[in-house]
């Protein structure tokens, strides 16, 4: 009888442990602005200007989402809440010496063929309405050759040194550089918020699928207002 009781206890204990082990802590509903950065990826002439080489690839979604206007508003509000705004840009030296033109991946070979994104050129220039004003403390990362905003820019070290835990990511494009930034951010342990209304896809339909099926593995896919609401709530908590 004693053995039966002992076994029953063991089973009950094991069940409780398993049940406890399967539970998860709740996700954050508020974000401390001091621990939060907004990373803007490649808001540059090729995408943002109607004359830009890649504008045609993104125009439809850009217009539908009114992305540029809404991102300017988003950034103003984020700055006002105390979120650190970080601008990541793409750019290469005049003769592309940093690139390996024999790499079978086509991304850099294509940039060289088109003689695109040279640092200091009009084509590499930044979208002016997003430029920080004199009082803004935005961070501009050095031009990068990598897909992820973390690639070769020192972004991770900089964010860590400032105690940033949460990153929101926006920009160009959902299926390429924004995605690379999101997955790298997740791998580095950041809590990543993918701002679906502030990003557009190079391939629009593919990007929609990625936001539905792939992004949630590495981020919380969220609208601008909802994310700002979380930061606003976090700011109120921090003020108490």
């Amino acid at each position, binding site marked *: 009888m004693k053995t039966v009781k002992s076994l029953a206890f063991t089973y009950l204990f094991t069940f409780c442990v398993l049940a406890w082990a399967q539970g998860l802590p709740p996700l954050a509903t508020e974000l401390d602005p001091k621990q939060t950065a907004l990373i803007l990826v490649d808001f540059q002439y090729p995408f943002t200007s109607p004359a830009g*080489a*890649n504008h*045609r*690839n993104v125009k439809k979604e850009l217009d539908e989402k009114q992305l540029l206007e809404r991102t300017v508003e988003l950034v103003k509000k984020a700055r006002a809440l105390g979120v650190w705004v970080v601008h990541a840009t793409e750019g290469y030296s005049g003769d592309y010496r940093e690139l390996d033109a024999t790499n079978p991946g*086509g991304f850099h070979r*294509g940039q060289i*063929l*088109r*003689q695109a994104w040279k640092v200091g050129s009009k084509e590499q220039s930044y979208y002016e309405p997003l430029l920080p004003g004199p009082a803004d403390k935005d961070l501009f990362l050095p031009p990068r050759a990598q897909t992820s905003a973390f690639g070769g820019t020192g972004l991770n070290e900089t964010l860590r040194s400032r105690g940033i835990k949460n990153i929101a990511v926006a920009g160009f494009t959902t299926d390429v550089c924004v995605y690379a930034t999101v997955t790298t951010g997740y791998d580095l342990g950041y809590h990543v918020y993918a701002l679906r209304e502030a990003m557009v896809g190079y*391939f629009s339909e593919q990007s929609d699928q990625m936001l539905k099926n792939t992004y949630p593995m590495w981020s919380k896919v969220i609208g601008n207002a909802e994310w700002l609401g979380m930061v606003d709530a976090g700011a109120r908590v921090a003020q108490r």
Partner: protein
Amino acid sequence: MHRRKVLAGLAAIPLLSSGGVASAEALATVRVDRLSDAWSAAEFEFEAAGDRQPGILVRLPQDRWYASSMLCSHNNCKLMFVRDLAMAQDSFSVKTSTPILGCPCHFSVFDITQGGKVVSGPAPKPPFQLAVRIADEMAYISA
């Protein structure tokens, strides 16, 4: 890089329509007096379905002509006219005996001697094809 070799093939200047039935139907008109050699080419702009887009006119051997949109049918990247056959092989990985249209985004290649037929890459179909009628040193380009 090879950019200069690509641009070297583009010569003529698009002109405004000069009246008449042919020009009234044309999406674009291009002077062809400077396109006397085979594989000489001119870029122009035209409007299709409310969209202003780049086009290309190429003089083929035996007084034939090719004209199409310069936008790739894959995802609208602007195509390159590649006259240098070595460049076509090295940059676009195609062995060809004639110049090609190539897409620098995803490396689709189009055979302009066969109506823009897709030779390689992800493009699903030729670039938007245009008709060419030559009269009085002018090319009248229409859909």
